[in-house]
Each structure stands twice: as structure tokens, then as C-alpha cells.
């Protein structure tokens, strides 16, 4: 796909995400119980686990849509959401958090396209107003992105007139338009009708194969098997098991993983 940087051996192994001992509670509910995860450039990591195990919360912490209580999250070596001051971590300013988010694309379960803008306007909105790309360039790149997700003919259509699968592909193009170093997918196919899940997964798989760094929270085990470099199992706010997909699905070592997989497969 067009403007994704080719992955070289030198790039591999370079950490895009470095999360250490992340804790997060909502009131008395401890959602994240010391989560750590490293993701290298070009890697696709799938996070699986039962509902309420903290997968989505962890993903939302990565771009600071949720504040974390302790631990640290770095993207491209940059601390997210917090700044070190006199050895303490204090919440960063609005502006620099916004700047950090520019390098992290996110795709939501409910698409969250802007309903008052056409597909193309959705895609070029942030490049023009956040990155300050010129309108001509943003439109050219936006058209190319819509082409990539197979929706070049829908550029002037409002989200209300698109199917769920088409909306989600526009949402992927919108996130890619910011040229992120890391893409987060938060159950991107869970709200879709079964017959259109495939078209969204195909776009995601293509992205993964082209070397985009991705963290994918999903219930689609087929996708995890095909596209993931690593699968991580989350349970009760912790990562309890991880491995390459073959090993993970064929011979899971943890009791909870086996129980979960037997239910879902």
C-alpha cells in the first residue's frame, strides 16, 4: 500500500510500544493489574480475552483516552500522557498529548465517523487542521487512501449512506491519513454484520502484511491466526499468556486460555 514505509531488518526490533506495569482502576474496579507489553516496528499483536478483561481499556490507555494510575507507556520512545518533573510523573499538557496522539491511529468498534462530513472530508479533516497539510495534498492522499480501502467511488458520500463495513474502512483510511507509527484496532469488527466483516478484515490483513505496526483487540480468531505475529491472552487485567499464533492456538499452556479458546473456537 502506497505510503507505508518498507520494513527493513534494521527497523525490526525497534520498539514502537513499550508499556510497563500499567495499572488502571475505575473506582474500586481494578481493570488493569500491571500490564506490560512491547511491540516492535512492523509487528502485529492481537489481544484476545473475555469481555471485561481489560483489553479495550489497555488500548485506550495507549493513546491516553484513559488516564493510567501507575506504570508507564511509551510510543516511539516518547512517554504518553505524562511528563517527568522532579522524578514524579505529572499529566502532560493538552497540546503535547494531542501531538503524541498524531502518531497513534485508532479504529473504534462503533466507527465514530463524523456524520456531518463526506467520506473524503472525514479522511482529510485531521491532515489539514492538525498536520497543516495543504488542501491539494491532503485531497490527493485522501483519494489514494480511499482507493486503498476500496471506496474511491464513495468519496462524496456521507457516512449515513454507507454500510457498516464501508464506514469502518473509511475510519481506517481516516486513521492512516495521519501517517501513524502505530495503529490500534478496538474490536473493529464487533459491531458489523457477519457478511461485511470479511471486507474490513481483508483491509486490516493487507495493512499487517505491508508492515504497519498494529495492536488488534479482536474476537476474530481467524484474523489472529492469519495476520498476527503474536497473540496475547488477557484475563482479569493481566496478560497471562503470549506466543506465535501456531503455538498459541495449537498448544496453549495456560488453563484459562484453553478454557477461553474452547468456548470461542
Amino acid at each position, binding site marked *: 500500500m502506497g505510503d507505508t514505509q518498507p520494513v527493513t531488518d534494521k527497523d525490526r526490533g525497534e520498539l514502537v510500544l513499550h508499556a510497563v506495569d500499567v495499572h488502571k482502576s475505575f473506582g474500586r474496579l481494578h481493570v488493569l493489574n500491571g500490564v506490560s507489553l512491547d511491540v516492535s516496528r512492523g509487528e502485529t499483536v492481537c489481544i484476545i480475552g473475555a469481555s471485561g478483561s481489560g483489553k479495550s481499556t489497555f488500548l485506550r490507555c495507549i493513546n491516553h*483516552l484513559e488516564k493510567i494510575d501507575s506504570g508507564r507507556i511509551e510510543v516511539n520512545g516518547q512517554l504518553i500522557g505524562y511528563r517527568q518533573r522532579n522524578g514524579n510523573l505529572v499529566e502532560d499538557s493538552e497540546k503535547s498529548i*494531542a501531538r503524541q496522539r498524531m502518531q497513534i491511529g485508532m479504529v473504534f468498534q462503533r466507527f465514530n465517523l463524523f456524520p456531518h462530513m463526506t467520506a473524503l472530508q472525514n479522511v482529510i*479533516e485531521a491532515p489539514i487542521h492538525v498536520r497543516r497539510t495543504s488542501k491539494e495534498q491532503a485531497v490527493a492522499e485522501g483519494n489514494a487512501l480511499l482507493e486503498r480501502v476500496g471506496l474511491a467511488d464513495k468519496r462524496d458520500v456521507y457516512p449515513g*449512506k454507507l454500510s457498516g463495513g464501508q464506514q469502518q474502512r473509511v475510519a481506517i483510511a481516516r486513521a492512516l491519513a495521519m501517517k501513524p507509527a502505530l495503529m490500534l484496532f478496538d474490536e473493529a469488527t464487533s459491531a458489523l454484520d457477519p457478511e461485511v466483516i470479511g471486507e474490513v478484515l481483508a483491509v486490516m490483513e493487507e495493512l499487517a502484511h505491508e508492515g504497519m505496526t498494529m495492536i488488534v483487540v479482536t474476537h476474530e480468531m481467524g484474523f489472529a491466526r492469519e495476520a498476527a505475529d503474536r497473540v496475547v491472552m488477557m484475563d482479569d487485567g493481566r496478560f497471562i499468556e503470549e506466543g506465535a499464533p501456531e503455538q498459541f492456538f495449537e498448544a496453549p499452556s495456560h488453563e484459562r486460555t484453553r478454557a477461553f479458546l474452547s468456548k470461542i473456537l
Partner: protein
Amino acid sequence: MIGAVDWGIVWARIFHPDHVFARALWTTVYISVLAQILGVLLGFVAALMRMSRFSLLRFLSGAYVLVFRGTPVIVQIFFVYFGTNLLFGFTLIRPANLGLFTLNDAVIAGILALGINEGAYMREIIRAGIDAVDRGQMEAARSLGMPYRLAMRRIVLPQAARVIVPPLGNEFNNMMKTSSLLFFIGVYELFGDADVHYSTTFKPVEFFLAVAFWYLVLTTGWSLIQSRIERRLSMSERGDELSMRERLAEVFSPLHAWATRSR
């Protein structure tokens, strides 16, 4: 007694308004517009204060609404007109002549009072509009690197506008009628014009009937404009794809909007 009505006067007031009357009509219109604009601005600021994380700002916003929704607008008008200069110990409200807008001190005090009163009602309307926008919209905007204010301006407010405009239109309709209260501090507007004629001729039916007609013209004209604005705002939401020609027709032809209203 119906025979005692001099229909000639009513006819003349409706079809041959003199220039004093025209001036009074214009005064009603611009006072209402300026007061409504002030009300929207104040309501917007108060709505943002209400959502602030600083408790002092939230408190001030609440106190503002409590006081100005809880007291009669005529009291507020008299208070601002007679009280402000006394209260501050210097002439805060000064007359100004800007050609089309003759802003004497009563007009300025009146616009201020009506606008401040209106802001208290607009705060609730604007807040409800912002609350009606799905939280995911703000999250999506911020995940793309938009700072809060940009996300508010480009993403949330345009969607909130659709919810805000219908009640805002009703507020403006009310405003045009409420502005008649300014006659009691000496503003020569539509109602004032009628009252002056009534008190020199003692013909209440004729003059108040005629002025009622003119208020009806203002409010009906406004409701036509309002329905066009609402249609335009709901267009993209329904996902209608309009050609450029249709869009132009939509903007420039009131007849077109009128004819296709029931579509």
C-alpha cells in the same frame, strides 16, 4: 360594538405605514437580533463554564442561571437601566449613534438586560445540544490529534447545532415579542409606537390590532427562515446527496424551499 372599529385606521397602519412606524419596526428587529446574539454568546460561555473542571466556574454558571431565570425580565430591565450607572458610580452605559442603529442609553440597557436574561436560557439549550453529540465523536477527534478546542469547533459544535437551532429559533421568536417590554424604559419600538397612538386617540382596538399584525409578520417571517436553516442542517445527517445545482437552489430560492418543504 364591533361597528365602532375604524377599519380605515387598521388598514392604513398595515398597508401604509409611515416612516416613524418603519423606524419603530426596525428598532424592534435590531434590538431582538443584537440581544439574541448577546444571549447566545453568554449562553455558550456559561455552557462551557458549566462543563469546566474548575468548581468556581461551574458555581458562577449555576448562579447566573439561578438568578436570571428566577426573576422577572422586567425587573432585570429596570435594574440595568436605572441601576447600573448608580451601582458602578460612573456612566457605564453611554449613548452611541451608529447610523442605522441609534443606540441611546435605554436601547443599550435594554439589549444588555434582554441579552443577559436570554443567556441563562441559552446555556441550558447549548449544553443539551453538546451533550446530545455522541461521546465517541470527541474521542475520535482527539485520537486524530485534535486538541480539545479544535475538536469542539470542527466536530462537536457543528453536530450540536442541529439540536440547538430549533429551540434557538423559538427563543428568538420569544425575544421579538419580549422586546416590547423595553417601551417601559422609553425605547420607541413597535409596541411603543402603538401605545403612543393609542394614548393620543383612545382607539385601542385599531392600533393594537395593527401592531399585533406586524408582530405576526415578524414571527411568521422568522419561522420560514428557521425551517430552512433546520432543513439545511439535517441534510447531511440524512445522508442525502445533493448536486451543486440543488445546493444553490436550496440557498438562493426561498420558493424552492417552500415548495419542497413537505418532501
